[in-house]
């Protein structure tokens, strides 16, 4: 009786199984190696919440990228290098073509993964952080510090300060204090500030704050003695609200303080209460849920109850929107890679690298994505793995972040030579021959 099931039926079953398997093969895997616990959990949960929501929105609204469904798996790194490496090793082979790329949201983990990603052919994307000299794509073909790196941001910040002082020539003789988190992240901008101090004639004092930064009495007394015109706050985590409260105690006006984008989120200023009013911060993405892309996420993900953020009011916050930008970059890179290597097919690491290196999001594309004004346009190339370089400035009014400037471009005449010098030093140390961009496609 069972044999009479018939050849046709067996063939049908086999076809179904094959189709099922083929369907399972048409997926693009994205590892989500982030942090939801620990002292930086507010940032990590916000960013990865936005990232995952955007991916789910693209799946729900468009069915993936040209029919290729996007899958992901979360892995907790706790902002710890060893955990980050372990998560990377565990997830790099998942999915039919392996991991598409990895965004660790941690400078330390990025550094640890550079050699491994280069050997495994998995691009490492460090949007707004990471190894700044990887902007030179000739030495770092697999590392993409996209949109804006720390040095570019710093030059834009000096331009902003100059605009408040009345022009770049008015910077001469002014005093600027760089209050930085005493870590690898914090020290990154010291050389570029020194270079600009020499160029524009202002005096810069670098004052470190030991991790985690909830004791800053000594530093702010020193700042009161110096009487600077501006203070750049390069903080992280609890250092930020502590700095704002200490500034209020010492009587330093907060509207003469400019923070980096890891000091410029709601979680950084709300704990400081009224002390934070007037504080400026740099950003490569804005806050607010009044953008078409956020509205689409709410429509396709939250109304169905599949949103990542348990606290719905966090949708549209700075960190959340940053995660959405990460998602946009990932999806557009996949789309760009598919244009060349085959629409509707999952992309390998090499193909994703090509996609990232030829990413071109212009104003028209931004409008289609619903992200006009939300993020800047991006044009990546072999020489330039940064692709953007512009920064907007926000000001906290006690309730929300208001955008107070348009996109301010960075000063690449200062930044680029320093990047190329640093990258060349790395290449010599590691014995890497820089690529010849003219020869590549």
């Amino acid at each position: 009786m069972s044999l009479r099931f018939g050849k046709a039926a067996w063939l049908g079953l086999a076809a179904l199984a094959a189709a099922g398997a083929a369907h399972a093969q048409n997926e693009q895997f994205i590892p989500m190696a982030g942090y939801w616990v620990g002292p930086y959990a507010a940032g990590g949960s916000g960013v990865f919440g936005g990232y995952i929501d955007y991916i789910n929105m693209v799946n729900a609204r468009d069915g993936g990228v040209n029919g290729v469904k996007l899958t992901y798996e979360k892995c907790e790194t706790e902002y710890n290098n060893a955990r980050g490496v372990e998560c990377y090793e565990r997830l790099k082979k998942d999915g039919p073509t392996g991991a598409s790329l990895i965004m660790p949201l941690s400078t330390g983990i990025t550094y640890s993964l550079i050699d491994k990603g280069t050997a495994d052919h998995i691009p490492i994307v460090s949007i707004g952080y990471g190894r700044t000299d990887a902007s030179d794509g000739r030495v770092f073909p697999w590392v993409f510090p996209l949109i804006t790196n720390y040095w570019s941001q710093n030059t834009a910040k000096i331009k902003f300060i100059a605009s408040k002082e009345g022009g770049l020539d008015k910077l001469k003789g002014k005093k600027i204090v760089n209050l930085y988190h005493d870590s690898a992240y914090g020290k990154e901008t010291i050389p570029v500030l020194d270079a600009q101090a020499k160029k524009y004639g202002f005096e810069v004092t670098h004052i470190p704050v030991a991790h985690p930064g909830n004791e800053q009495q000594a530093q702010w007394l020193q700042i009161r003695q110096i009487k600077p015109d501006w203070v750049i706050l390069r903080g992280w985590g609890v250092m930020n609200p502590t700095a704002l409260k200490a500034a209020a105690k010492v009587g330093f006006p907060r509207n003469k303080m400019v923070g980096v984008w890891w000091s410029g989120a709601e979680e950084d200023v709300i704990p400081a209460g009224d002390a934070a009013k007037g504080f400026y911060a740099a950003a490569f993405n804005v806050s607010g849920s009044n953008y078409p892309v956020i509205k689409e996420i709410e429509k396709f993900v939250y109304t169905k109850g599949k949103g990542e953020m348990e606290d719905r009011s966090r949708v549209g916050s700075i960190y959340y929107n940053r995660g959405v930008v990460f998602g946009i970059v990932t999806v557009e890179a996949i789309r760009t890679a598919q244009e060349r290597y085959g629409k509707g097919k999952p992309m390998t690491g090499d193909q994703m690298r090509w996609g990232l290196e030829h990413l071109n999001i212009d104003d028209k594309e931004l409008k289609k994505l619903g992200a006009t004004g939300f993020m800047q346009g991006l044009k990546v190339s072999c020489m330039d793995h940064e692709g953007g370089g512009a920064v907007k400035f926000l000001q906290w009014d006690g309730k929300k972040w208001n955008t107070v400037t348009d996109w301010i471009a960075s000063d690449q005449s200062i930044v680029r030579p320093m990047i190329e010098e640093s990258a060349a030093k790395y290449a010599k140390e590691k014995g890497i021959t820089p690529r010849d961009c003219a020869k590549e496609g």
Partner: protein
Amino acid sequence: MLYRETGQFKTDYAADQQLFPIRQDRVAIVALLVFAFAGVPLAAATPGLAVAIDFNYWFSGVLIPFLIFSLAALGLNILTGYAGLLSLGTAAFMAVGAFAAYNFELRVPGMPMLMSFILAGGVAAVVGIVFGLPSLRIRGFYLAVATLAAQFFVVWALTKFGWFSNYSTSGVITAQKIAVFGWAIDTPVKRYLLVLAIVCVLALAAKNMVRGAAGRAWMAVRDMDVAAQVVGIPIMRTKLLAFAISSFYCGVAGALYAFAYLGTVEPAGFELDLSFRILFMIIIGGVGSILGSFLGAAFIVLLPIFLDLSANAIERSFGLTLPSGLVSNLTLIIFGALIVFFLSVEPLGLARLWQIAKEKLRLWPFPH
């Protein structure tokens, strides 16, 4: 019954003084070493198995950190378990080893990599002796605080003085490629074998040391240092030797951590929580036991991974979405509970449990 040593007679002193006098132990150790050195790499090279099991992940993400942390736990066990000098500065000594190895490789042209590791251990030993000087005057909890000073000072010094990280703008340094006797150690298998070889040699040295005069002096100091002094054991030399040897092991572990595991080093990666982690390893594994260092390291390295994989499996099979961060918080809770459990029920840790099992195996299946 299985573990009986009846019938195993020793006919000379050398046989009597063996590290593993019982034949079953010797067989087990040889089998383990053969499996570790030959079996695992051969399995990794078999094409069929390599498809089913992701060996690179197991090497790079599990075995290598397990071996490195075992070495660090061994170092701490010598200091805290055998000599009784509680130390919270383990991660600092690892940091010294890592940065010293990097600087030796960088500044001395043509320095062989193994030599760099040994010299890095030596530098860590010197630093250990310096920070071990307080142990001559204070003990117990107060000594722990003095080693805490070592932990913070070393990390601060490595961040503050750019010379240690070759003036890199971010303070993060990339470890150089390892080459031993002309062979490049670039694949996970080769790194695993290198780390395994170093750990085996150092573990054997440790096992010998703790059996000999030095080890007995340490245990005397641990049990009652005044009585030890009265009996004639040179206290200063014994305590400083403990610090030196322990820091040497931690320094070599730190150098391997940077070169063979992470590939990059930054001072922030050697913070206090790493010191505590290694302390937890020896508490759970067993203070004052070489085997305990390995068991504790295996436990602490594998438990978070095991919990993570179980959580993923549960999520997949039941279609749930567990709250993010649940697994991490659960890991911390479990560690805390286990520390309390082990300290109250079995202060000598997993190694003691293994010893009790061996005792029972001598009689099994006859319970009396």
